[in-house]
């Protein structure tokens, strides 16, 4: 199938590949998807005390669109507050990358990854509060 130039760009030069320390209280990790479905995305965000995403990284097992969606998302969330980041919609991702209908699930997964990373961070904070 033919991929858009933007997908190919992210696929060939993925942005922000890597990992942060999962245990760091400023890091939120979201892992979504399953090997059985052919894609697994792990998105990590590093958030300042005032709730701004300072850095993001990802690793993805999946097709070209899945890799591109997660790479794009790491660029988009940087500099955003958690609240702003949580408003990113799968349709925005799909539109930016010109994903064909059969690949929409990749953008859905990327949106889920953001949510999951934010939730992970919030539950960490809750836990810290409880402990204090």
């Amino acid at each position, binding site marked *: 199938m033919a991929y858009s130039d933007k997908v190919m760009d992210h696929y060939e030069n993925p942005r922000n590949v890597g990992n942060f320390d999962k245990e760091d209280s400023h890091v939120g990790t979201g892992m979504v998807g*399953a090997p*059985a479905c052919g894609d697994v995305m*792990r998105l990590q965000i590093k958030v300042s005390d005032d709730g701004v995403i300072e850095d993001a990284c990802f*690793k993805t*097992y*999946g097709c*070209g669109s899945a890799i591109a969606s997660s790479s794009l998302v790491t660029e988009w969330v940087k500099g955003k507050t958690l609240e702003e980041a949580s408003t990113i919609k799968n349709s925005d991702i799909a539109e930016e990358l010109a994903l064909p209908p*059969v690949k929409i699930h990749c953008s859905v997964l990327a949106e889920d990854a953001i949510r999951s990373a934010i939730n992970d961070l919030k539950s960490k904070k809750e836990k810290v509060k409880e402990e204090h």
Partner: protein
Amino acid sequence: MSHLPIYFDYSATTPVDPRVAEKMCRYLTMGDGLFGNPASRSHLYGWESEKAVDEARQHVADLIHADAKEIVWTSGATESDNLAIKGAAHFYHKQGRHIITSKTEHKAVLDSCRHLEREGFEVTYLDPEANGLISFEKLEAAMRPDTILVSIMHVNNEIGVIQDVAAIGELCRSRKILFHVDAAQSAGKIPIDVRAMKIDLLSLSAHKIYGPKGMGALFVQRKPRVRIEAQMHGGGHERGMRSGTLATHQIVGMGEAFRLAGLEMERDRIHAENLRQRLLDGIAGIEEVYINGDMARRVPTNLNISFNYVEGESLMLALSDLAVSSGSACTSASLEPSYVLRALGRSDELAHSSIRFSFGRFTTEADVDRAVELIAGKVEKLRDLSPLWEMFKEGVDLSTVQWAAH
């Protein structure tokens, strides 16, 4: 296009051998007057093309040790499978309504069986063993007094494993059950002897062995006589089993391809074995590589490999300089990986990570060397991107991870 990707998809189709194409062309144009309808009995044009059709029929029959009278021309192996399975079922339904096949058959066989189920036939779909082969014990256990047909492919299209059709044929003949073999992937690659193998019906394709697309044949045994009900009705061509004007140039192409395959089978085999070994040696240094399907009982033209923790479609994208196919069906709406690999009991991850390399007469060592170089680099790059690879390297057992389903 500036340069073509290197072709590694001979199991999907082969280029027509130039010697075949040249011969076919002579039967298309006015030229030597060879374009006629072989059914025309009243003039030279008809006689000449009938002669060409007869010669081609003999070449096809020779390759499988059959009689020319037992060859029925069709549009390809899919039609042959349909004609054999539905044709036999419809003719013999009064003797029984049970059919046995396997889960790794081609869709042309599986869908024909599904169709018969809707008509009231019962079908047993055998699970292959982990190496892709059918167990005789399981086959024998599935046989019933009302079983009329067993359909098992000779060589699997995805994993290239060779079934022991002679042993299956023996078993079927002893139970007086008809035996159909889809030989689309084996003809011309390994010897076929329909008598020794006790095969009653055999499907053949031209375009898998350097002949034209849109051309195939069905072997229908005459002694003892096997009957099938026609699926295509009309002018009563092919002794009533398949009507339609014979496509002389296509038939000539298939005949020539089969003649050449008979002459060059040994050379093609050695060539393919060398290439496959070269590919295997080339990737031997890559970790977590799994070969799908039995390595010993396998045609030399096929190598189906899973690169664990790398998704097949993204690997294909990375290997866009190579024309290969993947068991990952990420492009299809179902998201289901290869049903063949799943039937072997391969995990979903491995099924999603599979790539089929198939090579043939025109593949060169330089092609394989280029492929090895690309594979090594791209697999490493994609594994650096893969969270599963990272977890594997950290010693995480992926089967114990609770995945968020979607």
